[in-house]
């Protein structure tokens, strides 16, 4: 059976399994969920190993007719970019389950519901990266909002209902704009050789569009992705959602779901509308740079640790977007690697923030103090995650961030220069909470917090290990990403700028 389809089916089977276990056997339910996600993770790693990085065509391809009269197929297949993101998603899922072992309890509904939603979400996460049919992609893109919506609203904290609604409405709005564009594509494809949603065939369609049409359709896709990613000024849902949801949900939300936005920019915006992409590149770069700086400033000003992490992500998504639209191999590969790395460093931050919150009963930074002395392991984990977030060399994010900057500089020096100021701001937004929460005297209320237990250590260890390992040796991922991003650029008709002072000139 097709590897991707298998990976998508496994969580569905797992969710059915969870559904039939009686609600009162909570431990059994959790074990089933963990087992399922582990199984998916293993099959994800196997797929990654089997993936032939020298081949730039889509792999693990499967296609079956779904709604033939609209030309819609169930078609899946991955290139180097997609397989990396799928790998990230399936690796994060068991970590989230294990790390948030107890976060399913105390929600509005039973843990069973939590895990069913989570597993369904996992299927859709894989599907959204694997889909090679635009309609199928859209179905996953939209449908995955619903489980997240219930995960935030049902199991979150604080203003969870409002945050869930805001998240859903924002996303639906973007999704509907994208639907308009998809309809546009569908109609144009119908006029040029028959209705289809096949990404490969649609990517040849831009030759039949006027530039006006192409620009409009591009915007439909791009705004949807910019909301998802999120890019300034479409970001205000993210801090609310991140602050209100459980740590595990936040990890999946920021780590995986938001990547759909940036992934979509590569997969759809660039591939389907190459000319419009070029037209809008200056505007997008401006937005990206604003996001980088703006997100950083807001993170510096944040009082709530989860909101802070959300704002840092806005900054990071700015980097990713900038890397994509720099249209250089360094930028493109760096952006993709960034997506992967951001998944893990944000996961670490959110998980630790969640543990801090569950122990202290608050996520306000000012409520913490001197944790390094009380809970050294937790403090260290947060610190390392923070260092990864500020792209300390030797940790994974550095490689990707630097690639993005260097790749952008060769084509758009001004954008890169402004963005580089973000690394100073990054130092501030990480070190301020580190100082307030971890350093200083141990403030009242924090004296008796317990350090990480064995389960939590097991959950966070692989994340930290990946952060460190990829910092020193990113090649396993870069080798998969490079051919794919080179292919994207080749299709776009871009070649890397030649060094202006090289001897060959």
């Amino acid at each position: 059976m097709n590897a991707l389809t298998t990976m998508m089916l496994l969580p569905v089977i797992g969710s059915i399994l969870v559904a039939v276990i009686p609600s009162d056997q909570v431990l059994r339910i959790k074990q089933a969920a963990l087992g399922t996600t582990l199984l998916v993770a293993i099959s994800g790693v196997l797929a990654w190993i089997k993936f032939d990085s020298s081949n730039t065509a889509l792999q693990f391809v499967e296609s079956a007719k779904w709604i033939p009269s609209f030309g819609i197929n169930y078609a899946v297949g991955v290139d180097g970019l997609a397989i990396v993101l799928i790998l990230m998603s399936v690796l994060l899922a068991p970590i989230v389950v294990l790390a948030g072992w107890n976060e399913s309890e105390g929600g509005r509904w039973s843990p069973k519901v939590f895990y069913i939603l989570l597993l369904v979400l996992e299927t859709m996460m894989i599907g959204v990266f694997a889909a090679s049919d635009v309609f199928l992609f859209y179905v996953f893109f939209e449908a995955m909002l619903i489980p997240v919506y219930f995960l935030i609203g049902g199991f979150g904290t604080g203003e969870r209902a409002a945050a869930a609604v805001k998240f859903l409405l924002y996303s639906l709005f973007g999704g509907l704009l994208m639907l308009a564009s998809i309809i546009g594509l569908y109609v144009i494809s119908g006029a040029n050789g028959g209705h289809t949603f096949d990404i490969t065939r649609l990517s040849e369609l831009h030759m039949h569009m006027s530039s006006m049409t192409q620009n409009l359709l591009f915007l439909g896709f791009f705004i949807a992705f910019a909301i998802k990613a999120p890019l300034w000024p479409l970001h205000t849902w993210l801090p609310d959602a991140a602050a209100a949801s459980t740590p595990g949900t936040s990890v999946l939300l920021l780590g995986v779901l938001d990547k759909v936005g940036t992934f979509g920019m590569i997969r759809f915006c660039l591939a389907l509308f190459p000319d419009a992409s070029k037209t809008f590149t200056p505007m997008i770069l401006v937005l990206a740079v604003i996001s980088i700086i703006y997100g950083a400033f807001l993170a510096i000003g944040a009082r709530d640790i989860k909101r802070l992490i959300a704002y840092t992500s806005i900054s990071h998504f700015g980097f990713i977007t900038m890397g994509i639209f720099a249209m250089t191999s360094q930028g493109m590969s760096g952006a993709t690697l960034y997506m992967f790395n951001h998944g893990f460093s944000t996961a670490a931050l959110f998980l630790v923030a969640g543990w801090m919150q569950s122990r202290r009963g608050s996520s306000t930074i000012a409520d913490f103090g001197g944790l390094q002395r009380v809970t050294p392991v937790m403090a260290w984990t947060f610190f390392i995650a923070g260092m990864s977030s500020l792209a300390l060399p030797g940790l994974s994010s550095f490689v990707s961030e630097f690639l993005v900057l260097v790749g952008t500089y060769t084509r758009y020096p001004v954008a890169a220069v402004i963005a580089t100021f973000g690394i100073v701001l990054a130092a501030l937004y990480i070190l301020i909470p580190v100082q307030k929460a971890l350093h200083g005297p141990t403030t009242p209320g924090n004296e008796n917090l317990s350090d990480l237990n064995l389960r939590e250590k097991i959950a966070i260890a692989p994340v930290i290990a990946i952060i460190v390992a990829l910092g020193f040796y990113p090649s396993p991922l870069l080798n998969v990403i490079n051919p794919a991003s080179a292919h994207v650029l080749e299709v776009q008709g871009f070649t890397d700028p030649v060094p202006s002072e090289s001897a060959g000139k």
Partner: protein
Amino acid sequence: MVTSTTLVYLIALPLFGSAILLLAGRRSDKWGHLLATALSASSFALGLYQLSQMLGRSTEERAITQKLFSWINVGTFNVDAGLLLDQLSICFVLLITGVGTLIHIYSISYMSHDENRRRFFAYLNLFIAAMLLLVLGNSYLNLYVGWEGVGLASYLLIGFWNQKPAYATASKKAFVMNRIGDMGLSFAIMIAFATLGTVSFRGVQEASHTASKAALTAIGIMLLVAATGKSAQFPLQAWLGDAMAGPTPVSALIHAATMVTAGVYLIVRSNFIFDAAPTAQLLVVIVGAITLMFGALVGTAKDDIKKALAASTMSQIGYMILGAGLGPAGYAFAIMHLLTHGFFKAGMFLGAGSVMHGMNDQVDMRRYGALRKFMPITFATFGLGYLAIIGVPPFAGFYSKDAIIETAFNAGGVKGILLGSTALLGAAITAFYMTRVMVLTFTSKERWDDNQHPHESPLLMWIPMAILAIGSVTTGFLFTRGHALVNWLSPVVGEHAEGGKVLLQPAVVSGLALIAVIIGVGIAIAKYQLSDVDSVAPQNVSVFTRVARKDLMQDSFNEAVFMKPGQALTALLVKGDDKVIDGAVRGVAATALGTGSTLRKTQTGFARSYAAFILIGAIVLIAGIWVVTQ
């Protein structure tokens, strides 16, 4: 070029030690410091072995490389995890591991009462590893990893006692200001890649022959920015004084002997860029000259012994930067001063630590006095360092500092005279403030409380001090004998360009310098030895003293120009995000809701009004179709 398979162990050993100590946690409390010291020492041994190997090879084959693996490889951006050990880096390797090991030994005793000593040693080992990577990396990007790595170690060590909020703030300040410098390094690498297509030292060196002056100037200026951050040079100098929050061995190792000199290493390493970019080079000497005066002036006003030493460090590095900015004539002298400074300043810091150790961590020199009697060894070792730094022949500082002053005078024209005079004046002030430190601490009258019981430090502490003191005495002579260091470094930094117009003969410079030193020492002795000193800093002092005490207003300046506006901007953006951007979003929702509520009122409940809608609708429909049709 000769390849090696063993270079990596230089770095791997201390890195391994750091990882073990951090991961093993409290389990390694008993033996952690020993392991760390042993690993640092073995790195030093490896360094010596490498030196002996290097000496055994001919001049052209002395540099060796090791490629570990392909690190980042995207498009034409290919960076190997590769190491390069040449005549320049071996100096640093030995300085780092040698002084580092001594400070490990010192710390075993110094930190013995701290329950987190193991963690301290883990950080020290991490620092050694990162610093070695900095000097061994074969490309700017590899250097960058070490560059930020030492920043991290420095952050951790400054904030080692971060339960004190001020110390935590100091560590953050150091990291952030360093990051500003790091940004310069990022820019330099980006420009290098965009213009030259490579970021390795070798590649950039080759490309620099054909590259335009503009590109090289840009790279050079950015490298200078990086150097100012890491080496606490003007205008990014403000963090160094606060960094004295760290335990004293840290100040000795990181903020005196090694890390802060990384900027000098960077400039000397990039000699091929600066040689081809005179504008950048000029900026280097300007920065060096300003800083050496800046640090010296601040040093005269400090009562905190460590801060006085820190100011001195800043000033001395100013000398090095000045030297490095003088081109091929100065590179070797900059390195020489760096090495001798590593010995005497580390020794003095350890001495200061020893004093603090004996004085219940008192750092205010106005509370010291007459310690000579209670701490003879400390006095002796500190005194040797003192003689070295003020440049009394034949101590180490005399050779290295004189060489820089002389080169400065000979830089030619007005520039040479200005630079030379600045350096000379700096030497006088150095002599003044170092004498002040010496006098206030050791030879003036007692000013401490009755509950102080000054005592000499234990063996483990004074042995490293003694060894460093020996270094302060001998190194200058050794390095200059037969131009040993100049010749040793010439394959890396280019031939030492003698000749040309010589403004002042070496002997004249030495004479002038000695006069300057004597003036400085004399004033200080008159002021502090021969008259009484208040145990509390007098407040009715001149505005100059006040400004100098406040570090020449550097913090006030940064606060007024960067922090306050930054905080205001942050607050504004936070508010704006809620009120404007999210407000717009909420506004759209509210508008929809409001429109709904308004339109809802059309539903009056009266059937007649509904009928009226239908009637009007029909009329409009007819009219509409009519209009379209016509």
